[in-house]
């Protein structure tokens, strides 16, 4: 609880810092909106030209996309700077986290807040509500609850994976390439139903486990239970916690590594 209190204080000061760069904020939000519009445009053109993709209509795919973006938006608001961990290490900024009596993790995540995530919130909500209407979904309370849990699990999964990726910088010095690979995986899972890509790809994204961010849960939310594996959507929250646990272990190892190499 003490940690949470410190975290909130850190976040407050980070918000204050961000406020200083209004131009970047506006440009950032616009960028995110355009970026997402382009992604949705690609899906739209492709799928409408061919009517559907492996049984997924345009609106099914917009739904899939929105589910990803909603989870992602919370991640990008609070944890986006995991991508910059290598910067902290190279510049030596990380040292200061180790000479203060608060856990380095709390200090690190409290260091920044990314307003750009608001762009994702907007896109996520807009595309979700459009898809919800067009698909004429009528969810009961249980379904809405499940939806909320799934969105949060998505956030946790992405955050934990990025955390692990960031940790690799403690060994390799740079995590850019791995971040880049993750971005590409994200792009695929975000945009396409992964049953398109054949079995072994599905195994990979199930193990990594980004398929739990949107694909498996949307099978349940969209009632696509003809796939034998749709039940996997139900275990999303469990997978999320498990990934987070693994990330925490990797983090401990990374800190130990830093203490012995310091670079």
């Amino acid at each position: 609880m003490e940690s949470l209190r410190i975290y909130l204080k850190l976040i407050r000061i980070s918000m204050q810092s961000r406020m200083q760069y209004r131009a970047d904020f506006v440009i950032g939000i616009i960028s995110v909106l355009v970026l997402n519009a382009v992604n949705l445009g690609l899906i739209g053109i492709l799928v409408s030209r061919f009517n559907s993709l492996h049984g997924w209509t345009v609106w099914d795919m917009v739904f899939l996309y929105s589910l990803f973006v909603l989870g992602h938006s919370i991640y990008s608001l609070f944890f986006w700077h995991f991508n910059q961990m290598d910067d902290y290490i190279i510049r030596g900024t990380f040292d200061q986290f180790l000479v203060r009596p608060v856990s380095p993790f709390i200090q690190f995540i409290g260091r920044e807040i990314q307003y750009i995530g608001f762009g994702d919130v907007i896109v996520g909500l807009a595309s979700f509500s459009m898809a919800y209407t067009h698909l004429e979904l009528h969810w009961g309370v249980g379904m809405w609850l499940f939806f909320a849990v799934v969105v949060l699990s998505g956030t946790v999964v992405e955050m934990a994976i990025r955390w692990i990726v960031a940790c690799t910088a403690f060994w390799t010095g740079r995590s850019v390439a791995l971040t880049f690979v993750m971005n590409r995986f994200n792009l695929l899972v975000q945009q396409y139903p992964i049953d398109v890509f054949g079995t072994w790809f599905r195994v990979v994204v199930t193990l990594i486990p980004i398929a739990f961010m949107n694909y498996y849960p949307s099978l349940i939310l969209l009632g696509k239970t003809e796939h034998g594996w749709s039940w996997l959507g139900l275990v999303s929250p469990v997978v999320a916690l498990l990934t987070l646990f693994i990330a925490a272990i990797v983090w401990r190892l990374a800190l130990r590594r830093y203490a012995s190499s310091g670079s």
Partner: protein
Amino acid sequence: MNIFWSFTRQAFHNTAIYRFEYWLQLVSAFLMMYSVYWIWNILYTQRPGAFGVELGQMVTYGVIAMALESIFNPGQGPQMYISSQIKSGSIDTDLIKPLDFHLHMLAKNFGEISFRFGTIVLPAALIGFLFLDLQPPATALNGLSFAVSLTLGYLVLFSLNFLLGMVSVLTIDIRSIAWTYNSLVRFFAGQMVPLWLFPGWLGGLANVLPFKCIYSIPLSIYIGKLTGAAVWEGLLFQAVWVVVLMAVCRLVWAGVHSKLVVQGG
């Protein structure tokens, strides 16, 4: 010319230092090629021979586009270098070098790209031929034209990246702009969805913008979607854009340079 080679060699070294990164890039290139292969296969089972292009051609287009993206991705282009130099104030060190900055950037970037072409795109293409039904160029002439067209496409991309780098002089954080720019380039260049699938006005727009020089023209030549006179038209279109953009780059740089000199960096 000597200077050019020394930059290229330096770039070779810088790129080669991070071994782990290299293998990841190769893996990620293959991943994207694999995925695009499946997408087209599935779409073509629903509608064989769609839009006058055979499945084999379409897969070849998509797979090569993905392989190229791993080196054309603007995450590493001159704009990132320029923006970081400006942010840290070390652009001065570039200004005092007795080199033309624009050509210096070109030499540096070309060195990096050539190295990455050899170590990422070629192995990736080889994997493509072995596992992903990649086809050779439609004809020998198409193959040759593809090589020329790809070089021109690279010059267009370099120029656009360089201009984006100039934006950072306005002391704006260009990272978020770079993502958007990246996605717009890929969209209008036909990197994922070829331009002939674009509906009406969007297709019209994409056809006059310079972006299609980067992926669409070279790849259409490769798979034989463009043949005969259309090939020459494509190359001419690219050449015109290269000349125009290079000129714009030099003009903008001249302006930026004098601004930097006045401000003292």
